[in-house]
């Protein structure tokens, strides 16, 4: 009877989770949706607290309190630019929980488990452990604790694949001899190591794909935990979570012109070496001063801002909004063009601009804004580089060739706010800067936007 009640609770929460995710189809319904999801979570937790196996609430209460004390400040006070790190970190927390419970299950039942159950536990712990260290690595790279540059060595893919093969072999062996505890714990160790190796070769600019992929792994881990404990709600949420991560990684891959297999084998982020002796930027660029830029912008009827990671780095989003406000007061139409992989995680730029009070009606995705560039007077590129590089369309040998870009060159004038002429993360020279429509505005993005707003006002 009580068991059925619990299952009914879980069913209700599953429905509430699904309705919650549905709410995210529009900003207007999103918060209401999340409220439903929160309700679902509460229901599931209360239901589980009544589980007949629980005899002592001491450690449960301690865990709930400690988790809240850590989780709440992490969510309330971190700056919006650090959301990618937080997301990666929380993938690792989820994976940690799943693999610990898996280890506990194995420890508790050991030899009493059937071969299928041991296999399920093995897979669950493997996924959990590699997602745990992998996500920690990703968070470290995003936070800058670990260098953002890809680390590669010869035979890396072969080595990683054999490691994966070794882990799977250990799991199969465990299915035949469930009591082989050494095999089990070696497998855990290998999985932890594998997670690190998986993220090692990935550069910071590829993080949007990696985060989405780790999201998918975390979901799969959760589902595997559901299989292990025969807990339906975990299977459902894990599956939803896994497919969400997968869809996001596919979208990010498309936006970077990388194949899905490329991602599934984790062999990405390695940009092909440029032909030797890369041409030092000797071509002339046209530089403008703040005053000249302000003059050009002041007469524009329509302006499109193209933000990139550089805007996030210098926290320039509020100043960008300031410039936009002055332009709007002068009667210009202001839009923002957002490339799917601008920033360090899917949708990163949208959040930063929303933080600066930019209404979401002014945020346009790549397809929409590309059709609007021909009727745009001025494009202001703020800290974006590879996503506006025309080499993706014109230069077949380029590492980013084939990647869909924001076609800013179709506008009448392009002003690029950039720290210096150094190439971006992918290390590729950007032809846009030498185009005859392009004017360069050198300096820190935040500083430049502040001066620009002041110059426009006077």
């Amino acid at each position, binding site marked *: 009877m009580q068991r059925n009640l619990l299952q009914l609770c879980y069913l209700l929460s599953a429905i509430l989770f699904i309705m919650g*995710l549905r709410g995210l189809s529009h*900003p207007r319904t999103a918060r209401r949706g999340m409220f439903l*999801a929160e309700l679902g*979570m509460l229901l599931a937790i209360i239901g589980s607290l009544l589980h007949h196996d629980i005899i002592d609430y001491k450690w449960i209460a301690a*865990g709930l309190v400690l*988790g*809240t004390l850590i989780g709440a400040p992490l969510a309330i006070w971190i700056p919006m630019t650090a959301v990618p790190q937080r997301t990666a970190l929380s993938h690792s927390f989820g994976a940690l929980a799943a693999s610990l419970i898996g280890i506990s299950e194995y420890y*508790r039942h050991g030899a009493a488990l059937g071969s299928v159950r041991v296999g399920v536990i093995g897979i669950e712990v493997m996924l959990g452990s590699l997602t745990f260290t992998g996500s920690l690595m990703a968070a470290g790279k995003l936070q800058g604790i670990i260098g953002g540059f890809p680390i590669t060595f010869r035979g890396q893919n072969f080595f990683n694949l054999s490691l994966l093969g070794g882990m799977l072999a250990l799991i199969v062996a465990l299915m035949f001899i469930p009591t082989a505890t050494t095999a089990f714990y070696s497998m855990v160790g290998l999985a932890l190591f594998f997670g690190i190796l998986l993220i090692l070769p990935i550069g910071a600019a590829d993080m949007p794909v990696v985060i989405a992929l780790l999201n998918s792994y975390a979901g799969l881990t959760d589902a595997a935990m559901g299989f292990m404990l025969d807990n339906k709600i975990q299977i*459902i949420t894990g599956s939803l979570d896994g497919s969400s991560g997968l869809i996001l990684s596919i979208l990010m891959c498309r936006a970077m012109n990388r194949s899905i297999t490329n991602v599934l084998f984790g062999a990405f982020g390695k940009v092909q070496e440029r032909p030797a002796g890369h041409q030092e930027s000797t071509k002339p660029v046209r530089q403008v001063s703040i005053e000249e830029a302000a003059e050009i912008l002041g007469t524009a009827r329509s302006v499109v801002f193209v933000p990139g990671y550089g805007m996030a780095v210098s926290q320039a989003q509020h100043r960008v909004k300031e410039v936009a406000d002055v332009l709007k007061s002068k009667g210009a139409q202001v839009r923002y063009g957002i490339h799917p992989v601008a920033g360090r995680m899917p949708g990163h730029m949208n959040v930063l601009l929303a933080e600066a009070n930019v209404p979401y009606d002014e945020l346009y995705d790549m397809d929409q804004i590309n059709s609007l560039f021909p009727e745009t007077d001025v494009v202001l590129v703020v800290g974006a580089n590879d996503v506006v590089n025309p080499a993706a369309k014109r230069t077949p040998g380029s590492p980013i060739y084939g990647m869909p870009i924001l076609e800013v060159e179709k506008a009448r004038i392009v002003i690029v706010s950039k720290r210096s002429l150094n190439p971006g993360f992918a290390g590729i020279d950007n032809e846009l800067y030498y185009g005859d429509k392009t004017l360069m505005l050198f300096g820190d993005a935040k500083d430049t936007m502040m001066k620009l707003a002041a110059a426009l006002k006077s």
Partner: protein
Amino acid sequence: MIDIGLIGDLYIFVLAGFLGYQLISRVSPLLHTPLMSATNAISGISLVGSLVVAGAGYNEVSTALGFIAVTASTINVVGGFLITDRILKMFRPAGGDGRSPKGAASGGAGSAGDGRSPQGAASKGK
């Protein structure tokens, strides 16, 4: 042999995966970051499994592991929902310039936001 429970679970897993694909495809690209933090929060459901292990008193090791797992999952549940709401609060349509986010969300959406939000419209059109 493989027991029936596992096959039943597999049914649920596969069907939920298809549902997830449909559901997530409709999410506006505008909201991909809150989507990720929301799925983070929801995946904190591993809490329900961890609760039992932490409280059932099977043995000391299990209790200790369960306690850590409860802590880690709670971080995700509490932190995930809090930050999702914090992010979503910032998304406002044009015209709702009022300082109170709630007023902007409900008042502005009816007038200016109706069917005009570009990214939302595009994702539905695909």
